[in-house]
C-alpha cells in the first residue's frame, strides 16, 4: 500500500502525517508514506484544499484531518483483501 500526503508544509499537513503514522502503527502494517509538497504534484490529483490524503493513487480525504480512530478505519478499508 502506498500513502501520499498532499500539502505544502502547513500545520494541518504535519498533523495529518502524524495521524497517518500513528494509525499505521496501530494496524501494524507496512506502508510507504510519501509527502507531496509541490503545487504541480498536488493539483495533478485534482485537489485544491490541503492537506489531502491519497491511498494507492485514490483521493480519500481533502482539506481535513481525521482523528486516529477514523484514520485506522480509512486505512483498513483500503487494505487489499
Amino acid at each position, binding site marked *: 500500500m502506498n500513502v501520499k500526503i498532499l500539502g505544502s508544509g502547513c500545520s494541518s499537513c504535519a498533523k495529518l502525517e502524524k495521524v497517518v503514522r500513528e494509525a499505521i502503527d496501530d494496524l501494524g502494517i507496512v506502508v510507504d508514506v510519501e509527502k507531496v509538497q509541490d503545487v504541480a504534484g498536488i*493539483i495533478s490529483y485534482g*485537489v*485544491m484544499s490541503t492537506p489531502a490524503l491519497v491511498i494507492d493513487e485514490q*483521493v480519500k480525504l481533502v482539506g481535513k484531518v481525521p*482523528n486516529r480512530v477514523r484514520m485506522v478505519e480509512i486505512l483498513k478499508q483500503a487494505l487489499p483483501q
Partner: protein
Amino acid sequence: MLQAFADYMSYHLFGLSPASHLGAAVNFFIYDTIKIFLMLALIIFLVSLLRSFFPAERTKKILSHKREFVGNILAALLGIVTPFCSCSAVPVFIGFVESGVPLGVTFSFLISSPMVNEVALVLLWGMFGWKIAAIYISTGVSVAIVGGIVIGRLKLEHLVEDYVYNLKMGETEIAALNWKDRMNYAWGYVIDILKKVWLYVIIGIAIGGLMHGYAPADFLVKYAGRDNLFAVPLAVLIGVPLYSNAAGIIPIVNVLMEKGMAMGTVLAFMMAVTALSLPEMIILRKVLKPKLIAIFVGIMSVTIIFVGYLFNFMMG
C-alpha cells in the same frame, strides 16, 4: 443568566464594589469572556457544518466559465461558505484559473473568503449586535464583488506567473461525507480554532475591560471620531500587519467604538485586518507577479477606505 454569574463572581466572590473602576473592569471581563467563547463554539460548529457541503472543488465547478458580474457575485457569496485557509490559496488559485474561472471572478473569491470569516463574524455579533455583523458581511461581499470586477476589467492575465497556465489539473471524485463525518469535522474545527485564538481573545477582552473601566467615554472622539479625515486611512494602515490577531482585535475595537471611534473607521479597520494580510500576500507571490500583488493591495486599500468614509458619512 450570564450577567448574574459575572455579577456574582466579581461582586461577591472577589468582593469588588460595582461602583469601582476595578469592579466594572472585572465584571466586563468575566461576562464578555464567557459570552464570546460560547458564541465562538456554537457559530464555528454551525459554519463548519455548512461548509462541509461546499468544498473548494465544487465551488470551482460552479464558477468555471461564469461571466463577469454574475460570476463575481457568485464568487463573493461562495467565498463565505467555502472553507478556505490561506495555506491553500495557491492550489485554489491554480485550480480556479485552470478550470476557466476568469481572473476577476477568482479575485472576488479570494477577497471574500478570508474577509467574511467566522471568528470575525462571531465577535462582531457578540460585541456589537447582529446588525453590525450583517453590515460587515454585506459590505465585505460588496468590496469583493467590486474589487474582482475592477481586476477583471484591467486585463491582468499576463501578470499571473507563466507556469500557472502550464500546469495540469487532475480530475478526482471525492467521496461524499455522511452526517457523522460532518459533525466530527465540524467539532474538530471548533477545537482547532479555539486552540489557535483563545489567548488573543482573552488578552483582547482584558485590554477591552481595562479601557471600559478606566478610559473616559469620549476619550477617542478627538482622534478617531467622524470629523478626523485621517482616521480611516490610518486605521487601514494599522490593520494590515495585524492579521493573525484578528480574534483579539475585535474586543479592543468594541471599546474603541464605545469611547468614540466612528463606525466607518471601525469597519475599515476590521476589513484591513482580515482581507489584507501580509502572510497571504507572501503565499500568493508564488502565483502572482509582484505588480499584480501591488495592484491588488492598492485596489483593496482604496475600496476599504471608501467604505470607511461612506459609513462615517451615512451614520453622521
